[in-house]
């Protein structure tokens, strides 16, 4: 198992609707927690990276502004973006900057204040998340794209809306335990099935909520990690891949090829198999996304993902607990912050600090973070 680069600190803000502060202050919330967790000061940091979907901010080039607010001048900083998977793209770049010897300690800060712009402005941006020449002119939005994938999955494999509802019920169960989640109510199976359709076959509870939030990961070289950190969590594998943004460019809609390719790379680098994963965080921006993740990550054969949820195997105590922090469905999805929040959950699990949701003896964890409708896929494997 590679032990070259470790995560030595994690932090996360509460994920909320309508954060009552500016983006720099929101960023500080996660950053200050992660820096205290790592036990270091700004002078120890070699570089920082700001992960965000920039169209939600009036502030241009937020990395410069935020690095200043966090006290991270004159160290290098830049912004990195793959929409919803920006912060794990940042993690991969941080890994390479450390492994290459350029920097010893790198801060990866993800944030999104989705309430920063009006909801009319937000609706306008949503229409531009696809190929603006050939798809946006038809009136596309994220739920519609995932709905196309859901229908294809149903049709190819015989899965159904009921399987999706089971995934939402699980998310809601664990969201109730997570005090930093935006959605903390329980949800019944019938509620999910009977809710209004957003884009058929996806209904209201199949979709995650918007939220404001920030997350922070601090990565270090092996030498630094051993020197300053009692419980380093090692980056065993990082895989990332892309798929055509346009639906017309995809071979199949019954899975996400970018996730499959990223997983393959990450498993190979880590030298482990899906069976070795003790706990996973997957990108459940929609329920169908979690179902596809089971299969794309190899937790189930293609088309057999629904058996995992039907048999409760992705609950705590099951074969492979998935999103036991509530997932995006309960936590909310502050775009740039999401991947870092997933990583934080796994880091706490591997440090045996996950409290109510601890998977006993977890040694290897996985994060699956998707940008857009499977345009970008990042898979990270962590070990203690």
């Amino acid at each position: 198992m590679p032990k070259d680069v470790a995560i030595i600190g994690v932090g996360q803000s509460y994920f909320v609707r309508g954060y009552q502060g500016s983006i720099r202050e929101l960023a500080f919330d996660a950053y200050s927690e992660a820096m205290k967790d790592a036990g270091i000061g700004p002078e120890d940091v070699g570089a920082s990276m700001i992960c965000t979907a920039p169209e939600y901010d009036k502030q241009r080039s937020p990395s410069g502004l935020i690095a200043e607010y966090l006290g991270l001048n004159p160290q290098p900083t830049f912004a990195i973006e793959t929409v919803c998977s920006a912060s794990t793209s940042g993690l991969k770049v941080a890994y390479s900057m450390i492994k290459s010897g350029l920097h010893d300690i790198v801060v990866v800060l993800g944030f999104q204040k989705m309430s920063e712009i009006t909801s009319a402005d937000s609706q306008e941006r949503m229409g531009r998340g696809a190929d603006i020449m050939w798809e946006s002119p038809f009136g596309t939005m994220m739920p519609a794209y995932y709905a196309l994938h859901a229908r294809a999955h149903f049709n190819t494999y015989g899965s159904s809306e009921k399987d999706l509802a089971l995934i939402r019920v699980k998310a809601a169960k664990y969201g109730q335990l997570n005090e930093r989640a935006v959605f903390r109510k329980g949800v019944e199976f019938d509620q999910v099935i009977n809710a209004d359709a957003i884009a058929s076959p996806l209904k209201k509870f199949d979709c995650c909520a918007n939220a404001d939030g920030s997350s922070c990961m601090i990565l270090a070289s092996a030498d630094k990690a051993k020197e300053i950190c009692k419980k380093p969590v090692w980056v065993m594998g990082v895989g990332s891949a892309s798929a055509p943004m346009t639906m017309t460019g995809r071979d199949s809609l019954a899975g996400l090829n970018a996730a499959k390719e990223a997983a393959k790379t990450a498993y190979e680098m880590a030298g482990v198999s899906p069976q070795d994963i003790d706990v996973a965080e997957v990108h459940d921006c929609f329920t169908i996304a979690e179902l596809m993740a089971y299969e794309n990550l190899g937790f189930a054969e293609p088309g057999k993902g629904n058996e995992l949820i039907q048999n409760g195997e992705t609950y705590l105590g099951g074969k492979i607990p998935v999103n036991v922090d509530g997932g995006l469905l309960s936590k909310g999805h502050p775009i740039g912050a999401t991947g870092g929040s997933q990583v934080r959950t796994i880091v706490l699990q591997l440090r045996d600090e996950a409290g109510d949701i601890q998977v006993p003896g977890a040694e290897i964890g996985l994060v699956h973070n998707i940008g857009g409708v499977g345009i970008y896929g990042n898979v990270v494997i962590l070990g203690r």
Partner: protein
Amino acid sequence: MGFEKFGVVSFTAQTRASDFIDYLEKGEIRGTKCNLCGRVFFPPRADCSWCMSKDVEWIEIKGQGTLISFTKVNYAPTGFEGDVPYILALVDFDGIKVFGRLSKDLPEDSVKVGMALKVTPLALPEDKLTYEFLPA
């Protein structure tokens, strides 16, 4: 440069593939084909990334396609509010995939994955243009 005519709301005015609009005005849905490697592109591309070439010609998309997937959309982004609900679909024309909307005349419960469809131009208000899918 012509492309701002495409769709209910258009976000791009300039493209080296804007002849698409001229063909659409003539009633044809066209993609492009690389004159070096023969690969066919829909949506049309002005460049072939396999050959690093800009030498492409226009070819017509016609005949009968098969519905790969669809969704009935009840909420829409800015500029499309008046259109909901509408059905978005992905259709396979013998290996060439086309993304668009189904005709408003098709009720959702008559729509099935695998059904046969054709694609045809559609005039929109304010001199705009698009295409839509109809039963073949």
